[in-house]
């Protein structure tokens, strides 16, 4: 009986040793993984900083001005003028509907195309 207990204790100790060994190496693997991830984060942060610098370089006022000049036929962009800012009271009201243009009784069983009901804008085009 005593001999059996000795043997069991001995093998139990071997088993605990094996468990400690495996935990140790699992821990080291995790730490190495953590270090690898931190290095990857740092590299990605550097890439983000490079992209920000690239964006700022492509967005610089000289380049935008040159692009506006090169594409003038297509875009026709001009510098803003003070006269382009005005109080709302100076804007024209849209022209009211002509008499009889709106139907007296709308058929609401179907969907109604509201654009087709309005009279044509005498100035034409978007506001």
């Amino acid at each position: 009986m005593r001999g059996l207990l000795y043997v069991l204790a001995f093998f139990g100790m071997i088993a605990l040793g094996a468990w400690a060994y495996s935990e140790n190496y699992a821990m080291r693997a995790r730490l190495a993984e953590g270090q690898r991830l931190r290095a990857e984060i740092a590299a990605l942060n550097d890439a983000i900083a490079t992209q920000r610098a690239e964006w700022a370089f492509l967005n610089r006022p000289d380049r935008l001005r040159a692009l506006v000049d090169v594409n003038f036929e297509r875009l026709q962009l001009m510098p803003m003028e003070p006269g382009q800012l005005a109080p709302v009271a100076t804007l024209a009201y849209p022209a009211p509907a002509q008499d009889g243009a709106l139907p007296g009784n709308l058929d609401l069983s179907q969907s109604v195309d509201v654009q087709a009901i309005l009279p044509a804008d005498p100035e034409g085009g978007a506001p």
Partner: protein
Amino acid sequence: MTTRTPLRPLARILDAREKGENPDLIERENLRARHEAMKSRAMGRARFRLGILSFAFFAAFTTIGVQMGLTASQTPVEPRQEAGKSTISAQRADITDRNGNVLATNMLTHSLYVQTADLVDPPRVARELAALFPELKEDELLRRFTDGRSFLWVRKVLSPEQMQAVHEIGDPGLLFGPREMRLYPNGTLAAHILGGASFGAEGVSSAELIGVAGIEKAMDTRLRDPALAGEPLALSLDLTLQATMEEVLGAGMVMMNAKGAAGILMNVHTGEILAMASLPDFDPNDRPNPVLPKGAEPADSPLFNRAVQGVYELGSTFKIFAAAQAMELGLVTPETEVNTAALSVGKKRFSEFDNKNYGPVATVSKIIAVSSNIGTGHIALMIGGERQQAFLKDLGLLDPSPVELVEAPGAKPLRPPKWPDVVTVTAAFGHGISSSPLNLAAAYATIANGGIKVTPTLLQRDAPMKGIRVMSPQVAADSVAMLRRVVTEGTATLADVEGYSVAGKTGTADKPKKGGGYYDDKVVNTFAAVFPSDAPQYVLVISMDEPEGTSGGSEVRRTAGWTAVPVAAEIIKRIGPLMGLRPQVEAAPGNEVTAVRND
């Protein structure tokens, strides 16, 4: 198995009985021998057990000892907890404008260095490097490779293409070291404000960035602070306004054939500088050599900041300070009539510009509007030299500007050592006393914001700054009204931009010669504007060095009304909408409907 000896062996007993000996002795002897054998067996067993035990102890201690030895002999590796930010730990903070647009940032690059011991073929390497990089000389490189040193820097920064080309040379002695460099993506924009950066302590795996000029050097400690490395330094500049001002000022400089120009746009309530330009300028990515050729003035270099470092006689723009002080002291009102016939102090006689005559008397308001020297001189004599000096000092015109640039403290305004009446008169119309355009802008901002002294700043400031009260709000409002009259009826009518009621003052000053005296045909023209004049928000100061404007004919005009004023008008017209300033219709209707179309 050993045979067991009986205690009373028959043969010996019989033998002993025949001889007459006691047979019990034989029994005791055998018993003793048997006990001895048992003892020696027990001792052997005990010795064996002791051996096992000592071996076990020895094994255990050896294991522990070996582990301790191994642990002691390894070099410790620290767990890197803090490596999330960047591969290179030292990082300089970015600089952005008030809206977050990047003005200065860091970029990862590599440096090129040589370990001469590892070079396989130094002549070939020298030849190929000289072919790749034009500023390197082949014989110089070869000499440095072979003169006995073990390490040398070849290039501080490399582009990725250059790095690949050097890599393809294929020599093991050519090595790359990572580092960060400072990049200014907007090129020459705000060059004097940003200044530039270069490398301090350089190592193989990293290099330290230090500021060299401008705000990079003035705020170097904050930019290098590791706790604030992630937080960009927000300047008060607006990138759009700065670009517009530089563009229009550059065009104006070319049109007026000027040697240089400076412009400052400032918010009058907070003292923030929204745009500050000095032309000619440079690219801070590639700062030119500051060494000047023989005989050149410091102002000839593009590195010279004409807005902050340039100290000029600003001319008639100072007249408003005399008028404002006289009103503040209660000596005059805008309608008080002052002698404009003649002025002489001792032997010196003063006259008007172009020998004009404004009549025997004129109101203070008219004196400022037409820029009369004689009238202003009389006002200044009323004030007296000491009070005038104190007032100019309160406005900040006699001290270097406190703005956050490393060149600012060195730009001391020049003033005469003594202040007799002659100096009182000349200082009133801005001659004999020199100041920088930035000081002038701060002084005009003080008038524009109702009389609180303005401290200019390049850093973003949200709240209006606190300052001493230099003049009462009524005096300030009257002064702005006088300045408005200059634009509507006086010397600066070209600045009357529709919708932004611009108020301002022109100043034309002859440039002083080195040996004393003034040039006949070289002037510095300044225009200091405040807008919108009913509730001033911004100050714009434009200064042009040796401009030659034309009035449409062949005659060259060198007064500010023909040079600095049209440039300022164009700048206000362009930046007004960009700042969201609504042009005001003359009769502001309030909330009523003013126009309705009924087709």
